[in-house]
């Protein structure tokens, strides 16, 4: 255990770096030809799998066209080489760029589609590879394959087999460093937000489409690099290498290693390379094995080998007493900085779903420094109205204004960027991130840092990351959850998740904060804390719109109450007035009319 404690004291990137060094040292220790070839093929497969992990595991997109990207990379490099451009660095760059372009093009068309459609469309792309090559048979050799690829060179000098092995190793290590830097950065968290729910992503100001495209196009790059390396490994490429079998092997390796992991790709690729695809004796069983892996992987090991490793680490940590004891909660003592609230005005908004008039000429106004409550029986149109403000539904008629700017017709992420933040009836928290990261994700669209700066860890990225952490700490202290900063966010109890959503919304300093049934499911103590928090947001100048069933809480908190019934506003005014309004009592509280 002492050894484990010492190991854990090292930074987490030590292990992968050491592994990379061993990989690069292997030829020095003497490797026979077939072992070396197997390792190189495993590295190439690992690159493919890693790209799939980025789009499938992190962004949750079932895009299975890696084999087609791989083919594009291989043929780009092969044709360059056949034309005399043998420098491997040039080929890698060209393949990467070509594949990025292919990824962007196919992504723009394909990513509008949902899960199955995208999966099938991208598989179709794989099926088309031989046909496309046949169309350009003059350049690609068509179905006979592309021969005449020259031996690779680097900076003018020819590469011997060991040199080429090192090139593969360096590319592999470099890509995994890039992948790791993306995944642990705010972009990685944003991808998980997207995977959790595109609705959540867009209500946090993240364009779901652009994020998907980013993951998909970035995931294509390693496939292109792998293709260039593959073309130079055998100096021959043919359409058969990029078929259905490869596509399913890559998927199986990804699932086996764990799709939502960085280094799982290595483990999965190694298993698939040294397992089923190994020797010719097993060749005919390869498909059977791949099929079994896919079924067993899909049914049993949800997180793959990476998840097993994570669980083992957690268990060892606990045994070694490394798990930090949660400190007692510091109650919300931090001050809320002044918030520049905006005025939300809903003017004459109507919406019909088929024949059902969900909203009919609704008018209300929420002002800075005030809590406006929206109440009404189930089905009265409260949530529809919220969704309309957030841009998830289009208005049939009427206007929605934020400080005079029109919001209706804008996409949800634009509405969010204009300063509308919201929480959800069922808290929506991405999986696999800490409480601190989940809160910091709320700043994704307010303070920008490019993917490139995250990959290279440029000063701009470091500054934003520091700001992310500081702000998130402050927000957590505000809601009294500072002691939970390192916990897994999605595993928190309901009350904590609601407060986390409030913190995540507040961190973007929104003009309007929409709370959708924020108090439902909370115990008395938690409701009090929430009420206190809302009062302080109001005192700091924020605009709060509260959709709530808890009538006591609403009377207690709200400055203005808007009562909806059957899609219409039936009453509007201060709590004292609403409390005694006979129509409200009849419609909403179900009280008999004689009370009035």
């Amino acid at each position, binding site marked *: 255990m002492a050894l484990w404690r010492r190991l854990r004291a090292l930074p987490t990137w030590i292990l992968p770096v050491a592994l990379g060094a061993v990989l690069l040292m292997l030829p020095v220790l003497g490797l026979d030809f077939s072992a070396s070839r197997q390792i190189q093929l495993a590295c190439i497969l690992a690159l493919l799998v890693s790209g799939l992990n980025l789009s499938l595991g992190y962004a*949750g997109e*079932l895009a299975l066209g890696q084999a087609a990207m791989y083919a594009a990379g291989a043929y780009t490099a092969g044709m360059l080489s056949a034309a005399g451009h043998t420098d491997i660095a040039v080929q890698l760059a060209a393949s990467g760029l070509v594949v990025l372009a292919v990824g962007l093009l196919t992504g723009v*068309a394909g990513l*509008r*589609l*949902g*899960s*199955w*459609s995208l*999966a*099938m*469309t991208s*598989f*179709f*792309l794989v*099926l*088309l590879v*031989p*046909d*496309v090559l*046949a*169309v350009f048979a003059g350049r690609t050799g068509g179905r006979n394959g592309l021969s005449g690829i020259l031996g690779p060179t680097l900076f003018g000098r020819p590469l011997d087999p060991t040199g080429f092995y090192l090139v593969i190793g360096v590319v592999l290590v470099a890509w995994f460093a890039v992948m790791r830097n993306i995944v642990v950065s705010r972009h990685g968290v944003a991808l998980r937000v997207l995977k959790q729910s595109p*609705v959540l992503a867009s209500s946090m100001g993240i364009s779901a489409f652009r994020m998907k495209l980013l993951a998909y196009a970035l995931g294509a790059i390693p496939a292109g690099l792998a293709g260039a390396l593959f073309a130079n490994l055998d100096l021959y490429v043919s359409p058969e290498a990029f078929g*259905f079998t490869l596509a*399913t092997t890559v*998927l*199986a390796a990804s*699932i086996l290693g764990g799709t939502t992991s960085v280094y799982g790709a290595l483990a999965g690729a190694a298993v698939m390379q040294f397992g089923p695809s190994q020797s010719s004796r097993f060749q*005919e*069983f*390869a*498909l*059977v*094995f*791949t*099929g*079994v*892996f*896919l*079924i*067993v*992987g*899909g*049914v049993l090991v*949800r997180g793959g080998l990476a998840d097993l490793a994570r669980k083992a680490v957690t268990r060892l940590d606990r045994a070694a007493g490394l798990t930090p004891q949660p400190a007692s909660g510091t109650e919300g003592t931090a001050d809320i900085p002044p918030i520049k609230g905006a005025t939300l005005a809903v003017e004459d908004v109507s919406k019909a*779903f088929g024949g059902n008039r969900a909203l009919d000429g609704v008018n209300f106004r929420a002002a800075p420094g005030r809590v406006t409550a929206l109440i009404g029986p189930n089905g009265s149109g409260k*949530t529809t109205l919220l*969704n309309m403000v*957030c841009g*998830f*539904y289009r208005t049939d008629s009427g206007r929605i204004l934020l400080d005079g700017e029109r919001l209706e017709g804008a996409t949800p992420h634009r509405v969010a960027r204009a300063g509308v933040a919201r929480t*959800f009836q069922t808290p929506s928290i991405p999986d696999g991130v800490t409480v601190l990261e989940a809160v910091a994700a709320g700043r994704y669209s307010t303070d920008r840092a490019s993917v490139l700066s995250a990959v290279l860890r440029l000063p701009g990225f470091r500054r934003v990351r520091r700001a992310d952490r500081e702000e998130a700490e402050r927000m957590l202290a505000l809601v009294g959850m500072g002691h939970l900063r390192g916990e897994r966010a999605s595993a928190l109890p309901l009350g904590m998740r609601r407060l986390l959503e409030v913190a995540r919304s507040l961190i973007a300093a929104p003009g309007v904060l929409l709370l959708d049934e924020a108090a439902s499911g909370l115990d008395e103590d938690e409701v009090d804390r929430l009420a206190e928090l809302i009062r302080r947001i109001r005192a700091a100048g924020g605009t709060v719109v509260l959709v709530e069933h808890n009538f006591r809480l609403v009377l207690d908190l709200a400055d203005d109450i808007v009562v909806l019934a059957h899609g219409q506003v039936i009453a509007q005014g201060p709590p004292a007035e609403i409390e005694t309004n006979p129509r409200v009592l009849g419609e909403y509280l179900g009280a008999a009319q004689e009370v009035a």
Partner: protein
Amino acid sequence: MTIIWGGLALGAVYALVAVGYNIVFISSKTFNFAQAQLMMVGTFVAHTGLVTLRLPVALVVLMATAAVMAVAAVEERLAIRPVGDPEAVLVTTLGAAVLLNGLTQLVWGGQPLTVPFFGGDQVLELLGGRVYPVEIALVVVAVALVVLFTWFSRRFVTGLALLAMAEDREAAMLRGIDVRRLAFWTFAASGALAGLLGVFVGPKTFAVATLGASLALKGFVVVAIGGFGSMPGTLVGGLVVGLVEALAARHLGSEYASISVFAVLIAILLVRPSGLFVRTRERAV
């Protein structure tokens, strides 16, 4: 006209795969990637029965139906029931598809095998084109199947239960429908159907292990055009895909056949993402 007939027959094959997709989709809102592979197994069983064992047609039909139904039942139990979310089901049914591909290659080898058609193979002249009896049979079977299914789902309690389940699984459960059992038997039935159809499809496509992937994707294009869950849509989709493929192969060259179908797929998906025969619903939070 010969091209048109060939295209129609091909389209009918794809439509038959699509009908299988739809039956499973309606009953359990899942997408069975292995549907085409089930049909492929049916063609192999038909080959063994008709060519190797020289059994009577009726017996072979029964054999193929029963065998593939059993395979489908096993698939449902192992690869679909234990899996929770629909995306993982795509992975496991894909696994089942790969597994079936591998197994059939082990058992029957990689070479295409002939499946004779019981209706004979003398070429007929019809409306100025040449057509094989099996091609006519395929078109007739596809149309009959869609009509039959539509009639069945409106007329019988089981059919109505299916529609109820497709509309709202939980509500159907509350109405006393054993959703899991119904889903299982529908899946098995889709397998039985695939086996039965193997006897019709085999003579057109041959029994070959590479049949699955291409059939699976073209069948999907048919569903994408017609809309998920729409039975009449499969006929229209099959018509479009079969004709596009046959005409492109004739006029542009064989390498353009699949590319043209892909272009149609992309165009349809961009214009009407939920297909031609299914209404889009506004998204809800």
